[in-house]
């Protein structure tokens, strides 16, 4: 066996093994063992990811594993139009893009595993928790390593399953179970579209291998799209439509409008889960999907512009909804929605590396923020309402410092990670070839507003938790080092993470990430150039928005106090708290009618249709019964029937001979 080629494929296998072991024997293990086992397996995967990174860095082509087998039946017409069986292979590929993702997943995943050893201390389902976490990591790795869409789809739904299990981890609470179910179902809406996208791609390209599809566009030249598409397309042009399907699929996983509603509810899961799945990794799968399918999106300007717009709207929506939340994790959840919107803007603009850049930086600081929240929640005895916190600066010094770093990073304060990625997004959208005459600038403006809002609500989050005086009733204490060490590492990453993607004006080759992803996820063609001063102005504006947001937030809190009673009671505040009523709209427009129809159908099918069939049967039987009237018992009546029958038959004969 080709060891070099298959080594990286072990990455998902290790955590999967961990899952299996923990599911089967986990119950018999003493407390830290499952955690240690799970963490070390993920760490091994991380090592493999690093090895893979080193392996793949110098390569131009993706590294394909050689251990493959038939997975899905497929037939394609050969040159003569004869159908030839060409089953899709189950196989992995490691290229620069997936390598980055594996590093993020295993790296951050490892840290969160470690954190969870402390966080989940004493929980009845300790080993189960780590089993699920390992399962998640495995699925996420399959997702990013897949070399074809269906294999990617295994991971795609697999992480959905993991997410379902982890959101509903404390399943005895109906709320948690409901949230888990909701997450899975909403995800499935996206998945359905992703499937449709795959089908259309297969119709167009006769393959579902991602690299084959991407390379069929050539690396530089945009081929004439219509020559690629053959056969009857579901709408047209097929490529745009396929891209739109993929977009909707991505929207499901990445909680974009209109499929965003599950993510805030998903905070019902334990906090490490929120950090790992619902901030750092799984939710970025949609972004990854778009970047992965760069060939398609780069050649589908319409769909790309939709990606940007959906991203922009989601970013605003998330930010607006985050403003007035009172749950420490909900604020971060809506913030995640908003930041994911940001990433969509980036990948929609055609600058795929920027999207991945933000995925990385966001993974650092959002995981950090979530884990910090976890630490806080842990410290205040499970309380999650920020109005019951405050003044934790002294009591939780470590948590406070790292939270501040995280807050500033997400707000986009120079030189923290968020600043660089956010700046890269704003400038790429400004120069995007998919913006058209108006969209690019409009979305850029929206991005700027969102930056302002982000800084604002994050500062509110920070102040309500850490500043002022403690308003709760618990006795907060700092977490153990098993929890704080990961926090420090993440904080460090949040500080320096931005340097992998320094802006262009600092020099031609300073942007390591863009160069690294040049082969795996090249930019779409046709970005405008803007002069240096323009770029500087953009940076300045972004920075100003961030600083402005923080200041505005400080002013509001100073004016209205902790509860922000002044404006939170306003209609706007209410709307924000209810997340712009999206949930309610869904209930009225989708869930309730669907449920109603289902109930009616069930009634109709069990009773109505049944009654119809029954009526038919009874009618038949009645007809039989009515024959008994004819069967009167009188022999002369029977003779009449015989004679009448004779008469009719003779009459028929007579008519026939005359006719």
């Amino acid at each position, binding site marked *: 066996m080709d060891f070099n080629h298959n080594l990286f494929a072990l990455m998902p296998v290790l955590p999967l093994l961990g899952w299996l072991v923990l599911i089967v024997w986990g119950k018999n293990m003493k407390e830290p063992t499952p955690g240690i086992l799970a963490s070390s397996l993920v760490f091994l995967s991380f090592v493999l990811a690093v090895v893979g990174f080193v392996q793949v860095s110098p390569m131009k082509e993706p590294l394909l594993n050689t251990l493959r087998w038939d997975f899905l039946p497929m037939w394609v017409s050969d040159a003569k139009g004869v159908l030839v069986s060409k089953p899709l292979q189950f196989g992995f590929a490691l290229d620069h893009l997936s390598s980055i993702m594996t590093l993020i997943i295993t790296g951050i995943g490892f840290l969160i595993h470690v954190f969870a050893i402390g966080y989940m201390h004493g929980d009845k389902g300790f080993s189960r928790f780590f089993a699920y976490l390992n399962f998640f990591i495995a699925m996420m790795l399959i997702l990013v390593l897949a070399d074809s869409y269906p294999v990617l789809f295994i991971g795609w739904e697999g992480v959905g399953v993991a997410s379902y299990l982890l959101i509903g981890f404390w*399943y005895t609470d109906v709320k948690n179970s409901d949230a888990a179910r909701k997450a899975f179902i909403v995800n499935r809406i996206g998945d359905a579209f992703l499937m449709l996208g795959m*089908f259309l791609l297969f119709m167009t390209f006769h393959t579902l291998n991602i690299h084959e599809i991407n390379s069929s566009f050539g690396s530089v030249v945009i081929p004439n799209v219509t020559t690629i598409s053959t*056969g009857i397309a579901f709408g047209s042009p097929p490529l745009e439509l396929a891209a739109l399907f993929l977009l909707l699929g991505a929207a499901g996983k990445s909680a974009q409008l209109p499929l965003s509603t599950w993510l805030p509810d998903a905070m019902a899961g334990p906090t490490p889960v929120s950090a790992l799945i619902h901030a750092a990794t799984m939710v970025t799968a949609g972004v990854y999907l778009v970047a992965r399918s760069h060939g398609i999106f780069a050649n589908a300007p319409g769909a790309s512009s939709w990606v940007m717009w959906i991203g922009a709207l989601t970013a605003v929506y998330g930010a607006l909804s985050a403003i007035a939340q009172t749950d420490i994790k909900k604020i971060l959840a809506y913030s995640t929605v908003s930041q994911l919107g940001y990433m969509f803007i980036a990948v929609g603009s055609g600058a795929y590396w920027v999207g991945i850049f933000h995925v990385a930086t966001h993974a650092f600081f959002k995981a950090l923020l979530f884990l910090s929240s976890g630490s806080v929640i842990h410290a205040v005895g499970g309380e999650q309402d920020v109005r019951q916190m405050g003044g934790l600066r002294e009591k939780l010094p470590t948590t406070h410092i790292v939270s501040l770093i995280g807050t500033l990073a997400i707000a986009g304060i120079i030189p923290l990670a968020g600043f660089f990625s956010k700046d890269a997004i704003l400038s790429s959208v400004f120069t995007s070839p998919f913006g058209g005459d108006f969209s690019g600038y409009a979305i850029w403006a929206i991005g700027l507003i969102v930056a302002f809002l982000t800084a604002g609500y994050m500062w509110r989050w920070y102040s309500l938790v850490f500043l002022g005086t403690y308003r709760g009733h618990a006795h907060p204490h700092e977490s153990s080092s098993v929890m704080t060490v990961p926090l420090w590492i993440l904080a460090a990453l949040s500080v320096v993470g931005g340097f992998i993607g320094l802006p262009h004006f600092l020099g031609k080759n300073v942007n390591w990430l863009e160069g690294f992803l040049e082969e795996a996820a090249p930019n779409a063609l046709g970005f405008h150039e803007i002069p240096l001063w323009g770029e500087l102005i953009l940076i300045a504006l972004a920075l100003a928005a961030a600083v402005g947001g923080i200041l505005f937030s400080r002013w509001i809190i100073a004016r209205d106090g902790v509860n922000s009673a002044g404006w939170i009671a306003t209609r706007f505040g209410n709307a924000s708290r209810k997340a712009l009523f999206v949930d309610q709209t869904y209930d009225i427009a989708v869930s309730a009618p669907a449920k109603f129809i289902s109930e009616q159908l069930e009634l109709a099918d069990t009773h109505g249709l049944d009654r119809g069939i029954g009526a038919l*049967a009874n009618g038949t039987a009645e007809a039989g019964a009515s024959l008994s009237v004819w069967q009167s018992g009188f022999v002369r009546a029977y003779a009449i029937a015989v004679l009448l029958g004779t008469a009719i038959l003779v009459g028929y004969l007579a008519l026939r001979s005359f006719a």
Partner: protein
Amino acid sequence: MIHLIIFIPLLFALIGLFLRGQARASISIFAALASFALTAVVWIAKIDTVYRTPWIPGAGIFYSVTFDGPSLLLALVATLMTSITLIYFSNRKDSQQAEGMYPLALAMLTGLLGIFAARDLILFYVFFEATLVPSLFMLGLYGRKNRVRALTKMALYTIFGGLLMLVSIIATKLYSNSPSFDFLELFGRTSQLDLETQTWLFLGFVAAFAVKLPLFPLHNWLPDFHAENHSSGVADVMGTLYKVGGYGLFRFALPLFPAAAQNLQWVFMFLAAFTALYGAWIAFSSKDFKRLLAYAGLSHMGLVALGMFSLNPIGMAGALFLLAFQGVYSSALFLIVGMLEERLNKDVQNEKTTSQALEIGHVRGLAASAPAFAGVALVLWFASIGVPGLAGFIGEFSVFLGAYQANPWATALAVSTVIASAAFALTAYQRTWLEETTTTIPELNARDWFVLVPILAVTVFFGVFSGSALKLLEPSVQAVAGLLGGK
């Protein structure tokens, strides 16, 4: 060999009639296992010779049997699941009261294997209808309160469709001037028929298969059939395996009447897609586990039909795969329900407690006391709703993929079932296993594991390493698709 496989179960069913208790159970399980083992031998040794001998030569009827790819796969599943089911049943407390299940299940197995093996249309019909009798007896002897109604309904639906098919079979031979009912002789002649003739003959076949699949609006017997059957689920498993309409379509109706199939393709694709969605949607409001599973099965069968009518090799391969493996995991869900019922139902004889035990949400939070049980149930549910990595996905995805190439709109309708099925499956699951614990049940015991582990293994193994099963299907699918000029 092939005759042994087909008739061993029946033979032992007859022997079993003269035995009681443990002896009957053992001999029945042995027969099923032997049949499975022999089928496996056929698979491994790649025996695919056609055995053909005159049955009624004057009428051109042959006893012509073989296990080629799809038949073999389905036969493997049927024998395996029957073995497992009988083992499961022998562990049940109430197995003594329903001893007749063993011979009836074995008789059904013979019927099923005959259906899969038959290459002569009349022979196929004979097996197809004969299998109904033990199935009716299972329902009638051991069913629940309204069993006679359910039984009559099922019998009437099936026979109605079946007799129309019989007329069609006879007419097929006459119109095509074939010397016999042997598929190989008919085939090729029938495609020369004009479109109108083909269409009528095709519709005759479809009448039977649409009932058996079932396809909306001929499905009404199915929920009652499952809901009224013995709560152990043995009959349900056999019933699930007996959903051979899709196989019939693939094996006979489509290759015999390609032009008609192509002509009516879109109608049936929409009907199939609608059935899939309809079943899943109704399942959401089902209050009884077995009704729920029945509607879930209806939804699956809609997908099977969709794949078949896609006339596309991918879709047909997917449909066959789905047909085979839903026989594993959907069947297993019935067994799970049976195990659950056994744990919850204090008094098996009491209709009321049985109904309660089968009611969704009557008890909640069972996962707390039986986490492994809950986990197994969840895996099987996930397989059933087509979560990738499990066997259900391969079939479902391929069906969609193939069907999309033929009719995107119908497929888009059908794809929406993935949402609906997630909704009903997880809701039902949550109402029973999750949420606040109201009652506790014993965890799976060793014998339960003995039943469930093979099922899980098959479900997971063929969800990832599907190649070996696909290999079996490939040549037949290729051949049929070639006939149909599929895309």
